């Protein structure tokens, strides 16, 4: 087929002929069977050529869709991430508030019930233990940091002295050494001390409260609360009810 005929058919099929050209071409088609056949063939070829474009555009649209889905997933992941961070932050804030609240409550209980035990030294055996009066002076003056080393020196000589042990524990509590104080009071509890057993229980319970070991404090408080006429019986009962709230 000549290139001119090819171009004429193409122009006709693509609707690019003027009305006059189109009319003349269609008249030719009515009498020229070979031309009419060629038009049909070329029309089909153009359709095939166009279907190449369709295929290419389909691929393009599929990748647009993929891109949209990926963007959507990224957005969802970002939202989920933000929500997770928000929830974690909220939980952290709630936990902090809760901890603060609990800590405030513990501090309040401790502050309203703790009082250093009144002890006097030096009234007896001053000749044997001359440093006792000095301990008594520091203790009375609430100079616990000065009293403690002296008490320890005296305890080295007299390790089972109940009054000194109690004084040591109180000094340690005053100096915020609650864990060490507990160990000292435990010695008095273990030996079922005749004079200071209940005091040791009471100060152990308070040390536990200050260390936020509320469950550990409860048995000591319960023991005091259930013993008629016990040291700090009423206060022990009160703290127990405060801890239950």
């Amino acid at each position, binding site marked *: 087929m000549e290139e001119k005929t090819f171009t004429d058919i193409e122009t006709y099929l693509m609707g690019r002929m003027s009305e006059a050209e189109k009319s003349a071409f269609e008249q030719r088609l009515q009498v020229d069977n070979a031309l009419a056949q060629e038009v049909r063939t070329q029309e089909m*070829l153009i359709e095939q*050529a166009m279907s*190449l474009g*369709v295929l*290419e555009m389909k691929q393009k*649209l599929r990748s647009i869709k993929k891109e*949209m889905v990926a963007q959507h997933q990224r957005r969802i992941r970002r939202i989920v991430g933000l929500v997770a961070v928000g929830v974690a932050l909220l939980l952290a804030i709630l936990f902090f508030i809760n901890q603060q609240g609990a800590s405030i409550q513990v501090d309040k209980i401790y502050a309203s019930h703790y009082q250093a035990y009144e002890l006097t030294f030096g009234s007896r055996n001053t000749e044997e233990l001359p440093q006792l009066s000095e301990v008594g002076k520091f203790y009375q003056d609430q100079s616990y940091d000065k009293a403690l080393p002296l008490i320890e020196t005296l305890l080295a000589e007299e390790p089972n002295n109940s009054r000194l042990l109690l004084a040591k524990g109180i000094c340690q509590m005053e100096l915020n050494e609650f864990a060490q104080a507990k160990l000292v009071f435990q010695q008095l509890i273990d030996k079922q001390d005749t004079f200071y057993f209940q005091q040791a229980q009471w100060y152990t319970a308070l040390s536990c409260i200050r260390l936020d070991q509320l469950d550990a404090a409860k048995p000591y408080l319960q023991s005091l609360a259930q013993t008629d006429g016990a040291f700090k019986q009423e206060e022990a009962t009160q703290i127990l009810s405060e801890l239950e709230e």
Partner: protein
Amino acid sequence: MKELKDKEIMQLLTSPDETKKDEALRYLYRTLFKTVKAYILKRSGTEQDADDVFQDGLIAFYMMARQDKLPTDIKVEAYLFSICRNRWNKSIGRMPTKIELGEQQFAIPAEDQQLERILQAEKQELVARLLNQIGEECKKVLTYFYFDRLRIKQIKERLKYSSDQIVKNKKYNCMKKLRSIVQPYLKQS
């Protein structure tokens, strides 16, 4: 995403600039696919049906735009939606009806048979064979001329040929090549 007016969409879609055309396609996909998908899913279609119908509908719309077969001053999204709705209803055996969109009524566009044949041809083995045999350059020349309806001058610029005549010769030779590939299938049918 910036909202585009109908005129802007049509200008982008029919632009010889490939990037602008892609921008219009992306815009239409983002703005209209959800609506078409909702329509199809409500009528027992699947997500895959929605993809197929929307993509075919968008290609049909593109070809009609390139061939100046669309009425002037159309509402692009409403018109494209009606094409997709028509295609879906046809595929499930419902007769096309007049539909109402907003305050305006649109007759469902009568997509011509040629357009339908071209869309269906894409699914045939022949096209896949053509793609393998015709070569990348011929594929581009033929696609730009017949599918995108670009002018010879525009193809020359896009493919960086030195003259219009080279493009014309290339197109003629590619059509001859296409004929030789398709000929055996013509004899079979």
